[in-house]
């Protein structure tokens, strides 16, 4: 049985790459390796993760420079071939800058860098990233960002809704998407979205930081388990 091979891209300034690698290596039937952003060969990877961090020091705009790293041309091809790409935090920002996901991530509405556990609602569990969750499940996963305020124009928002591309939203403990449960001012409490064909997803929260009981929550692990399951279904 072939193992699912996660390729985790490392940009100058990535700092959640090793966390993602550790989580992926601990999954059943999976392994992970790091890929320096100057590499251009993704043939050893079945899925790509763009990890969190501060690529290029967040200069100009978050993700704006990383989006032109040599590896991103290959990641774009990989995504356009329908293969899975997951962007976490800075990875989400890079995917938006690259045009692989809609919208943009602006400075948090309260201007603060926010590092805390939040509750999220799984709006769409019919994706390769979320199939292990119940629909509308409320999960606890931490955020750690200064620029997570999702914006998109009204037409884009309508499209995201109509196609079921809103995957995670910020909510209270009962699953209500209230203004108080929105940590950063994101449009419609959006925490994570996918592309139209649902093989590219980005989210601001850090599932890799909620994959062990010792870290306070295991709720993020199901995201990675969903990917393992989709890979097994596809290859067997």
């Amino acid at each position: 049985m072939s193992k699912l091979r996660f390729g985790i891209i490392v940009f100058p300034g990535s700092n959640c790459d090793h966390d993602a690698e550790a989580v992926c290596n601990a999954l059943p039937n999976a392994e992970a390796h790091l890929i320096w952003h100057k590499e251009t060969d993704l043939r050893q990877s079945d899925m790509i993760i763009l990890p969190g961090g501060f690529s290029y020091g967040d200069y100009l705009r978050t993700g704006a420079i990383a989006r032109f790293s040599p590896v991103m041309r290959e990641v774009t091809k990989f995504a356009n071939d329908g293969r899975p790409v997951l962007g976490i935090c800075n990875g989400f920002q890079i995917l938006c800058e690259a045009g692989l996901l809609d919208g943009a991530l602006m400075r948090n509405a309260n201007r603060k860098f926010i590092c805390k556990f939040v509750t999220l609602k799984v709006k769409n569990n019919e994706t390769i990233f979320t199939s292990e969750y119940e629909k509308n499940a409320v999960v606890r996963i931490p955020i750690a960002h200064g620029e997570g305020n999702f914006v998109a124009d009204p037409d884009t928002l309508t499209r995201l809704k109509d196609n079921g591309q809103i995957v995670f939203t910020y909510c209270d403990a009962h699953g209500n998407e209230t203004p108080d449960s929105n940590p950063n001012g994101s449009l419609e409490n959006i925490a994570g979205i996918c592309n139209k064909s649902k093989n590219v997803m980005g989210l601001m929260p850090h599932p890799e930081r909620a994959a062990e009981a010792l870290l306070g929550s295991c709720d993020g692990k199901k995201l990675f388990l969903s990917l393992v399951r989709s890979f097994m279904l596809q290859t067997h």
Partner: protein
Amino acid sequence: MPFKAKVRVTLRKSILDVQGKAVHHALENLGYESIESVRIGKYMELDVAESSAEKARAAVEDACKKLLSNPVMEDYHIDLEEI
């Protein structure tokens, strides 16, 4: 011919500028009653070696679209001068 392009990138009017709002609030606290709003943007100076102003502007315009601004949330303005 060398040109200097002065590029201003600002948040689109429809987008709330939280930084500008905070600075405006501070100005209000300092008693600047006549200052009604503040928008904060980025200012960049680019030295461009092109044979004509048209070509220089086209190059900077392309750079603005591709990298220097994000059209989802920002507008750009270019002032070009010969140096």
